[in-house]
């Protein structure tokens, strides 16, 4: 918890991650909305395209900002101190929760904007919000552990993309399918399979991270 508090205060002071993530997302969104807009997609293609585009934008924005939680420690040389001061479990949980909050903020900002700009109607707002929340948790989980791995490697931002894409693809598939379902109908039942898949993915990732993070952190 202390780690989370530290992350939040540091972020609120500097707002670097939020800016990066927000700006990236906004830029991508505007580019998409301007070029494609609500009217240039054939009605038959709308459900698929709009759902897919939303998550692509969210993932790209996330990929630009989430890895920072670990990379900045290595850059600022504060990593060694952190290793001595806190248990690995606490470090991971703190940074993971920070990423969840960051993603949630990003979603709260981008999603309504996206729906407005692209005339994307969501029939089931409740299930959709649930999907967004679970998606944030799952995406943050994978991003945090991958960020931890690459922070120990001499890499650029591309290493994060290379490592996370194969892991995030199934997640994105489920999220896009779920978004399509939520957009089409107001019921929870249609979104349930996707929700189940996303939550189990999140759970599996977190459990595995609990197991491998200490190894990654202490190398």
């Amino acid at each position, binding site marked *: 918890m202390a780690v989370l508090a530290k992350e939040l205060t540091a972020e609120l002071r500097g707002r670097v991650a939020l800016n990066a993530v927000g700006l990236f997302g906004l830029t991508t969104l505007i580019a998409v909305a301007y070029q494609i807009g609500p009217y240039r997609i054939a009605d038959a293609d709308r459900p698929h395209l709009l759902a897919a585009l939303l998550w692509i934008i969210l993932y790209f924005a996330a990929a630009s900002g989430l890895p920072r939680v670990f990379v900045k420690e290595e850059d600022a040389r504060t990593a060694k101190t952190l290793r001595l001061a806190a248990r690995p479990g606490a470090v991971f949980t703190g940074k993971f929760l920070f990423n969840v909050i960051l993603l949630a903020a990003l979603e709260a900002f981008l999603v309504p904007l996206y729906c407005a700009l692209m005339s994307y109607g969501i029939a089931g707002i409740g299930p959709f919000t649930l999907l967004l929340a679970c998606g944030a948790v799952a995406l943050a989980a*994978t991003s945090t*552990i*991958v960020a931890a*791995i*690459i922070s*120990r*490697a*001499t*890499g650029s931002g591309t*290493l994060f993309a*290379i*490592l996370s*894409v*194969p*892991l995030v*693809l*199934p997640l994105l*598939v*489920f999220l896009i*399918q779920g978004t399509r379902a939520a957009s089409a109908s107001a019921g929870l039942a249609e979104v349930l*399979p996707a929700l189940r*898949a996303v939550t*189990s*993915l999140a759970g*599996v*990732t977190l459990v*595995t*991270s609990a*197991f*491998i993070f200490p*190894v*990654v952190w202490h*190398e």
Partner: protein
Amino acid sequence: MTKPRLRTTAQWLLGIWLLVVAIAAFHWAPTARGFKGESSRIVFFHVPQAWVAVLAFCVNLVASLRYLRGRDPLDDARAAAAARLGLVFSVLATITGSLFAHVMWGSFWNWDPREVSIVILLLIYAAYFALREAITDDERRASLAAAYAILAFVTMPFLIFIVPRIYFSLHPDTLINTRGAMDMESRMFQVLMGSLVGFTGLFSWLYTLDVRLAKIRLARRRREEV
């Protein structure tokens, strides 16, 4: 029989076995109904390649887990060897699958869930090696690679098993049928099994060669350090 003798005999056996399988695949097994012309014959190569790619993944997982437990550099070598072969076979599986799709449906790629999962496996292997390339320290490379392999392994089943169950798949069901109902003619089935065994043997051979070489290298390095 001495070990080298046993090895050579097994290798010759494998050579003949796969030779027979190759001939049988084209001249003994029938073609499947519902497939275009002779195209179903590619199954005898495509399925075992995909199977080996997954098998290599499992071997890699076991080696990675063992490395994290005992920190034996040989386990890391084993993991890397398995991953190398996994990469090769997943590329082969993707290519043969794509060729088949072109013959059957006219396009090289259809975004069918099973097609996507073999590509994801390929991406995982590529990412695995990208990670290894990015780390210079031997022990750190081994640990981080092992960590990533484990993470990838737990994520994979979701795409292979869950997605196809829920959503429609273009993949011919007669071939991926796991319920036990034998939709395949017995000759086809026999050749397919024979090919599976043969490819597994080939993987085992190539894998052992790689590991033996790694053992020699490690022994040499240890001697140099003394």
